[in-house]
């Protein structure tokens, strides 16, 4: 068991690396899009789509599936890439991102791409959509869970706190929010633009159970998600501390890479870094 689990973790880490490479290629092809946060959250999406979720990419409307609601819609390239590798649609289709007649809209559109559970992009509303899905599941006595992926920048939105208050009041325990705490937003570092700390205390004050993990430690992400399942009296927030631009040295922690794709030259460099694990191994 232990050995097979270790093997699984190794597989997940390799998958996260593959997903990062594909993000670079996909954004380069698209010519616009968000680099830093998509690279930074690749481990979270890998853990979700390749370990945590009860889902079947060949049956995206399976009633008992877990729901993933991406609140920060600009992260969608990492979700699309993870979904493509998981088998929701052909990997080739990633080349259509942000292009005319594509199912891969610049921000996700509910109803056009099976497996996308919600429209998002305008920030701060994913938690509300997740709550609605969680209430419906509760009313129907269904066992699936709702995973809301949210970012730190969007905590500036008032709608978030309306939702946080409601979920705490109603003990929405089939909802787990995973917050990508990468400390950047378009105009700069979150603590300069609009300070969020003490973020943990804020959620706890609204009756949430809060966990904090290293968002690049896939085992830690999985453990936190499992702990959340065992919390019956509250919704759970997992604050995943991540490095924006993770594994592409020149992008790491640079807020200027928040909302832009790599240039062709940067893409070459980024892919070389990713293929060699930052120079630790030889490139094939």
């Amino acid at each position, binding site marked *: 068991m232990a050995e097979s689990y270790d093997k699984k973790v190794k597989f997940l880490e390799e998958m996260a690396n593959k997903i990062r490479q594909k993000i670079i290629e996909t954004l380069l092809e698209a010519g616009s899009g968000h680099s830093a946060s998509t690279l930074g959250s690749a481990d979270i999406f890998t853990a979700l789509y390749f370990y945590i979720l009860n889902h079947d990419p060949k049956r995206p409307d399976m009633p008992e599936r877990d729901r993933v*609601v991406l609140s920060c819609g600009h992260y969608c390239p990492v979700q699309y890439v993870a979904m493509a590798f998981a088998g929701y649609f052909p990997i080739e289709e990633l080349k259509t991102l942000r292009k005319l007649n594509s199912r891969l809209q610049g921000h996700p*559109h*509910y*109803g056009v791409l099976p497996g996308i*559970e*919600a*429209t998002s*992009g*305008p920030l701060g*509303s994913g938690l*509300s*959509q*997740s*709550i*609605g*899905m*969680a*209430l*419906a*599941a509760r*009313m*129907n006595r269904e066992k699936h869970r709702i995973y809301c992926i949210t970012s730190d920048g969007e905590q500036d939105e*008032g*709608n978030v706190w*309306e*939702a946080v*208050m*409601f979920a705490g009041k109603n003990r929405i325990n089939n909802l787990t929010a995973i917050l990508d705490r990468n400390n950047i937003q378009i105009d700069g570092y979150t603590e300069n633009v609009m300070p969020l700390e003490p973020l943990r205390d804020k959620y706890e004050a609204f009756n949430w159970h809060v966990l904090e993990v290293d968002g690049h430690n896939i085992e830690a992400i999985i453990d936190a998600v499992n702990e959340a399942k065992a919390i019956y009296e509250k919704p759970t927030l997992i604050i995943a501390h991540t490095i924006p631009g993770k594994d592409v040295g020149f992008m790491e922690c640079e807020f200027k890479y928040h909302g832009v794709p790599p240039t062709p030259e940067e893409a070459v460099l980024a892919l070389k870094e990713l293929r060699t694990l930052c120079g630790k191994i030889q490139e094939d």
Partner: protein
Amino acid sequence: MLNPQVKLSPDIFKEEIKKEPTRFGFGEGLVIAGDANPNVVVLCADITASTRCDAFRDKFPDRFFQMGIAEQNMAVVAVGLALSGKIPFISSYATFSPGRNWEQIRTFVAYSNANVNIAGAHAGISTGPDGATHQATEDLAIMRVLPNMRIFVPCDSLETKKATVAAAKIWGPDYIRFAREKTPIFTTEDTPFVPGKAEIFWESAKPKCAIIACGPLVYNALLAAKELEEEGIGTIVVNNHTLKPIDEKTIIDVAKRCRTVVTVEEHQVTGGLGGAVAEVLAKNLPTPMGFVGMQDTFGESGPFDQLIEKYGMGVGAIKEAVTKIVKKR
């Protein structure tokens, strides 16, 4: 004369006609819809009694959600419920929902084509003493511009009940608008209500103007039509309860027969019913038009009936608009 086929109330022009706010019909409609379908759920933002959601809440407590004063969250939680197969109604005052939460409605309800029903209470200037902050006179414009959105503006409490029951059955986003103040119940259970189909309520011999109205002001339009007929000006009065998708056929038909049109609405004359009818006619049959409604201005505090007079939506104002426009035939 009144169109006998639409079976309006025999008391319609009597002093003692029964009056009730249109929102009462919403409350009754919710309970009927809730009885008919267990997936119907109701969300309210701290004004449950005022929007008449209390009867539903008391009958189906497990299907009622108190959202607090948080219209943005309310709209999007409803989307999550709808995408999971529920049939949510969200209710607040129209200035707040769909006013304050318009972007949430635009992106998450309309763009997702989610089966969410939006109920805007206290619409128009019927909110009277509360003043302009609470008088929604722009809601039809901001909803009409949204793709996928269907809009009902019922004329009395009974029609509001029918519209609410219909909205629960129709798949897709709906907006229903209703008012606070008591207004006459002049339709009957037998009056037809078919979504998307405008009804002719009044038709004079040799009509010279088609009065196309929506909401409780349809009653004022009928009073005006009666007086105008007595004064020798024949009209047709259309109850245009579905603003979107609008009944182009009926509008073109009455415009062709009358050769002039006056629209009547408790809303800004831009973007609402007047705008919608003007678009239909400009495309199909350019016709001289008059516009009765709020003339690009905000309201103020005051008794409802006096506000209607001051802001030019009374019987006299409708008659004046008709008299003026028929000269352009």
